[in-house]
């Protein structure tokens, strides 16, 4: 009697299975990426972006001016150290334009990687208390940085306009190349997000990796056209590193797009694009795998 009753419940449960609105399972396919759910939480993403902006500059004097100050100071330092002291070439471009154009885009990349890679740990208190699609956090970081980049592009714009209209001897031309700018930003964003997601997933278990990452990202800059002039052949190991560096082609393209000077290497750009897309796909997969249980590990 008892046994019969039991088997009936089981059967009913199976029948009902399709009518449930949501099922939490112990196992989930490796490739399941719930995009509609992420879309449903889009307001949260905007809210997080808003929070990051509002919170950073509350109780500061200069407020959003800091967005300009960072790249401006970095550019000045690089001009002094690399261009003046070390005498490194900046191609046909004035050092200001050369470094600022590289640094603005590079800053976007490195911020995306570093902030994303710490996103699990930084928001652990939040993540252990409330559920929302975890990908919202890295996405919001990329968007926050995109806005920062937008503001910094204004600074770059001013400098370039100065050279176009006042210092015409520098020979900076702005033209149809500008259409490449959004492409560069998107690829760099994808690259940063992908790398950040992978690092974020791995650092939940192995915290020592986060030290390594900030170090590697810094080194990557020194083996990239941010510092080096790619119109001159770079020999040896460094040259090889620059070739392999997945930001090289894009930074050159960006510099060409905003100044009309520099090298455009279609091979490198294709390599960067493919690399970025693969990295993002891999990052999404790993992140998706880790996010379900990371709160047990962190």
């Amino acid at each position: 009697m008892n046994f019969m009753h039991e088997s009936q419940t089981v059967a009913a449960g199976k029948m009902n299975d399709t009518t449930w609105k949501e099922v939490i399972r112990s196992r989930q396919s490796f490739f399941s990426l719930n995009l509609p759910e992420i879309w449903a939480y889009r307001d949260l993403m905007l809210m997080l972006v808003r929070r990051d902006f509002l919170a950073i500059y509350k109780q500061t004097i200069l407020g959003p001016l800091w967005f300009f100050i960072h790249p401006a100071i970095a550019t000045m330092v690089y001009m002094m150290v690399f261009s003046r002291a070390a005498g490194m070439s900046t191609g046909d471009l004035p050092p200001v334009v050369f470094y600022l154009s590289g640094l603005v885009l590079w800053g976007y990349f490195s911020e995306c990687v570093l902030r994303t890679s710490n996103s699990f740990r930084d928001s652990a208190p939040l993540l252990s208390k409330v559920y929302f699609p975890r990908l919202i956090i890295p996405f919001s970081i990329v968007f926050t940085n995109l806005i920062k980049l937008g503001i910094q592009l204004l600074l770059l714009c001013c400098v370039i306009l100065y050279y176009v209209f006042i210092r015409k001897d520098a020979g900076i031309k702005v033209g149809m190349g500008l259409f490449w700018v959004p492409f560069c930003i998107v690829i760099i964003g994808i690259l940063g997000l992908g790398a950040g997601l992978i690092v974020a997933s791995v650092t939940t278990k192995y915290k020592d990796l986060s030290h390594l990452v900030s170090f590697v990202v810094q080194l990557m800059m020194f083996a990239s056209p941010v510092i080096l002039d790619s119109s001159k052949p770079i020999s040896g190991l460094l040259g090889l590193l620059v070739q392999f560096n997945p930001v090289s082609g894009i930074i050159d393209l960006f510099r060409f797009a905003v100044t009309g000077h520099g090298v455009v290497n279609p091979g490198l750009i294709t390599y960067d694009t493919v690399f970025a897309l693969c990295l993002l796909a891999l990052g999404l997969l790993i992140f998706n795998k880790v996010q379900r249980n990371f709160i047990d590990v962190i």
Partner: protein
Amino acid sequence: MEMIRVDKISKKYRLGEIHSGTLSEDLVQWFSRRKARRDQLTSPDESGGKWCWPLKEVSFSVNKGEVFGIVGKNGAGKSTLLKILSKITTPSSGNIYLNGKLASLLEVGTGFHPDLSGRENIFLNGALLGMRKQEIKDRFDEIVDFSGVNGFLDTPVKRYSSGMFVRLAFAVAAHLESDILIVDEVLAVGDYEFQQKCMGKMQDVANNKGRTVLFVSHNSAAVQRLCTRAMLLSNGSVKLTGSPAEVLEVYQVNHADKTDGLRDILDDDKSAYFLRWVLISQAGAGAFTARSGERVAIRASLNVRRRLSGAVLHCMVRDLNGNSLVYVRSNDDSQVPLTLEVGTHEVEFGFSLPVRHGEYGVELAVSEPDSLIDHWESSTRLKVVDKEFRDHHALEGLLSVETTFRIV
């Protein structure tokens, strides 16, 4: 209508040094595990050490409009269950079926940013709990009214009193439009008046709006008043489901540590397991108190479900810091292997305990030459009465033995 069905949910963690947190140590571990697998010494699952089960095969179901209370001691698995239900972590096995949108309030003020104003935090918090911006706008006035922080909407919440903070946080969550609401212990904060208001709101939510509430609390009075049904969790499994009065009675009786030497959770799948133990001392059998230094014995009942040959029985007494004080094995003084037939056996471990006044833990285990069959850490404490009744002091030493001093 059934809103939640939890079907045999288990959660397990690995005990011990599994994730050292650094890559190099993990790699070393991985290699040794691989080697072990190649040598076929152990199966991959068992090689990693002990498992701990915060939840074991928990099943229950909740219908629409019910306020379902979950009670249990600390460590009974309540928080783990809530975390799984609210998708913060996933079950190791089993499924959960939900018939509607679920929102959980595991902590008040989750995601509140201290530098942002009350208004900004309402939107941020609402979005975190899964509300769309428009929904929050529609309910904004209601939320502000309920929280009673009208005059401070544009003040950063770090300037709020803790009461205001909690009120605002609860207000946002209470106005969530979800079919199932999970509430954990939030009523423990805030002043009495606000607590009453929250309880009223929760009752209202369940009765009038037909929403389902899962309520987890230590507060028996609140469970009694709010809930229509309740469940008692103990050591990760469901002990009882029923009316709040019924469940609370059992909960309150079992709240204290067990003192009867009985085992409360049994694993039916083990081929042998201990059922209970008693202490045999001069005070008589059945008590759990020994005088320090006297000759005592732990008598344990062991249920054997298949014939065991070469079995070893173990008994260990530990102090509350985990130091092993006494360890008795069935093969200590005989080399003849022990053979146990199917059935219940009474066994006795004799020893003396010349230790200080206090409580001590008892562990019993049975093993075969190549595997551990059962290991039971009893929740019943062995009490030792010391002759001198001195204050227990860290400097005093573990042993209570005769000591002398003289100048030679």
